[in-house]
């Protein structure tokens, strides 16, 4: 109970600070929207050359942009942790009886909340461009986005608190995320890939996330593909939260 109160207090604090600067939410959304508006038509017409219907093309492309938003939106929240650590905010809070777990989860839940709002806005922007998708499918996909961003944000915070340097965090994240992003088939479906690339891609978790979200968008909600996506997202989430909690507990005396 006390933990929940702490999480709520920390969550509200961070949310208030974010909402005071709504510009950042818009800036965070601007890149995925640019991808959608400036690259989406190109992508869909390319896909249509290969015989994919435009409707299908948007159902393929939007989930990819959502995963991209998720990866970059939540993986970089660690920068905020380093700024807080430098400013002494983390130390100040650690000297109070507040739960260490709440310091992590309260902040990460704020990031998740903002990300889900961005994801919803992204889907809405895609509608006039030509997206037609199954409503239950989109809801399942948003659930996956929530789980995934929770996990990635926790990982990012844990990494940030371990390296405590923006100069290390940035390159580390980029090095880790870029191959994962390319292998997930976010930009073009992996079904176009040569066999070896397709196989390598199947060894990375985001491949399943993207595939499942695409199926869901197409209305195939109760399938093995979508189920495995949810399971992968759930595992990433649980493992990352545990790792984050461990790091936050270890860092305090």
């Amino acid at each position, binding site marked *: 109970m006390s933990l929940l109160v702490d999480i709520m*207090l920390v969550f509200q604090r961070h949310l208030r600070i974010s909402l005071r600067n709504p510009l950042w939410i818009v800036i965070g959304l601007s890149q995925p929207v640019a991808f959608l508006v400036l690259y989406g038509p190109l992508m869909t017409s390319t896909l249509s050359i290969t015989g994919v219907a435009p409707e299908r093309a948007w159902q393929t492309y939007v989930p990819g942009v959502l995963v991209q938003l998720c990866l970059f939106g939540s993986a970089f929240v660690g920068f905020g942790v380093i700024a807080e650590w430098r400013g002494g905010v983390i*130390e100040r809070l650690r*000297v109070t009886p507040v739960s260490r777990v709440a310091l992590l989860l309260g902040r990460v839940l704020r990031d998740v909340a903002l990300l889900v709002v961005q994801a919803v806005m992204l889907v809405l922007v895609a509608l006039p461009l030509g997206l037609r998708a199954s409503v239950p499918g989109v809801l399942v996909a948003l659930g996956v986005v929530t789980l995934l961003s929770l996990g990635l944000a926790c990982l990012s915070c844990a990494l940030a608190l371990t390296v405590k340097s923006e100069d290390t965090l940035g390159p580390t994240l980029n090095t880790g995320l870029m191959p994962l992003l390319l292998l997930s088939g976010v930009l073009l479906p992996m079904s176009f890939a040569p066999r070896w690339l397709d196989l390598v891609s199947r060894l990375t978790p985001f491949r399943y996330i993207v595939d499942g979200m695409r199926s869901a968008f197409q209305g195939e909600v109760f399938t093995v593909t979508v189920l495995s996506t949810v399971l992968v997202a759930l595992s990433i989430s649980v493992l990352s939260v545990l790792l984050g909690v461990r790091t936050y507990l270890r860092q305090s*005396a």
Partner: protein
Amino acid sequence: MSIIEANELTRTFRSGRQSVEAVRGVNLRVEAGEIVGFLGPNGAGKTTTLRMLTTLLRPTSGTARIAGADLATAPREVRRRIGYVAQYGGTDPNALVEEELFLQARLYRIPVAPARRRVADLLERLDLGGLGKRRVGSLSGGQRRRLDIALGLVHDPQVVFLDEPTAGLDPHSRNNLWEHTRRLREDLGTTVFLTTHYLDEADALCDRISVIDHGRIVAEDTPANLKRQLASDVLTVEVVGDPAAGQRLLAELPGVRHAAVTSTGGIQVTLADAEQGITDVITALSGAGIGVRALQLARASLDDVFLSLTGRELRDDPQGRHSSIPTTEGADHVPAR
């Protein structure tokens, strides 16, 4: 029972294969209601000790009880009873002043209504009235520092730890902050444990001072006692008549550590304690028929104490403030040139 009681606290840091003993057996006793200054040169173990006492860093060995709670077995209880004001404040520039205070109060589980009253109280008390709705980032340096302190006081802690409370503040804000610190003790009986780089601050504010160097406490006493034991007052007397005769006479007086004739024909007398010594000097001189034209007294400062304890200055002082105070060595060398 002392409110802060540390026994043989040590902390070893490992970096690669090397291990550095930052703190090597610190013993501390602070009584309730005291204002104690914790001084030491950079790297002496000051911050490490403070971080251990405030539960931010686990000691490698040793024990401590803070406000009756054991540091190792009940850190959460320690946190409930202490306030800590770090050097870098720890407020978010985009948060509102009252938001930060209210959050802090809620983290200590003060119920909502009393927490609101408490925030209003603290704003008033620390001269932050009317600033509640301002962003932290828009406050002046002095205001922000007072907010930091208010955050440390939200739950009426028995002990407050202040890390370099006045670093970077202008003289006016410094004096103001000293006033607040004194009032804290007078009005609420709060114990204050502070680190500082400013010896005049320690002198003006603290009942007692602990000096740490190379990870150990090297001195612990009242500022007055430390100065009496470890530094001298220097009195320069300009006389009508023969300074050499006066110098011989004064050198024999009890309480005079050293007497020398300066290049300008004055007598420089090093006294253990000027308050008693100065009358003796004047009486002796006038008894011998030597007239006193002028007197100049340089009181011992904690800077001298610090230098004699650690062989180092507390900080690199660009103004060379304390080098202008004459020393006995200086006086010795003057006639030789």
